[in-house]
């Protein structure tokens, strides 16, 4: 597609349920990032994929969070046993270069609300 696509746009879930968020990066982009954006706060790095290399998971806040990506295609971010503090906008971005200075292109985000 022309840009980074995320689904769903909005997700309301009950506390304790699992959720899965999807990201379709720009075709040909080797790098893919997941960020969390809480209201009124800066973006918080979660996880980074670069091609077939081992992902950088250093930003994942707990073992309830996990993400997968097959090659240079779709990625899914899974949050298990959701908590209210998980409520945020989850943003995905992709870029041509994995490391180094690069222009990341962002999706519109998935707004997750845990009730």
């Amino acid at each position: 597609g022309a840009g980074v696509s995320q689904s769903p746009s909005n997700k309301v879930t009950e506390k304790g349920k699992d959720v899965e968020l999807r990201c379709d990066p720009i075709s040909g982009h080797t790098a893919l990032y997941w960020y969390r954006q809480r209201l009124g706060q800066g973006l918080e790095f979660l996880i980074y994929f670069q091609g077939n290399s081992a992902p950088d998971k250093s930003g994942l806040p707990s073992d309830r969070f996990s993400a997968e990506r097959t090659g240079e295609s779709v990625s899914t971010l899974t949050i298990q046993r959701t908590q209210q503090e998980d409520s945020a906008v989850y943003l995905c971005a992709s870029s041509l270069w994995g490391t180094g200075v690069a222009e990341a292109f962002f999706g519109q985000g998935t707004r997750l609300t845990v009730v």
Partner: protein
Amino acid sequence: EDQVTQSPEALRLQEGESSSLNCSYTVSGLRGLFWYRQDPGKGPEFLFTLYSAGEEKEKERLKATLTKKESFLHITAPKPEDSATYLCAVETDSNYQLIWGAGTKLIIKP
């Protein structure tokens, strides 16, 4: 600890009233500083990258400048469509992941 701070948190201007947004940073070795625009319900949209002190970039009514401690995003004669949240982020020598500021919400009143 690497840190990025943006000010003010919010800025309301009349159409045509020029002003500046600030992004100050304390990092161990700057590789690049990025400015993004974020509209409600959308992801950040890339505006500029600055690499070294003294560098300037311009795009329409926006001009970004960089010193060794901070960056300014100058907006000249803004229009209502410039209303958005402007985010600043830095990449450092020791951490290729971007460190983000909380943003400045800019509102331009007609």
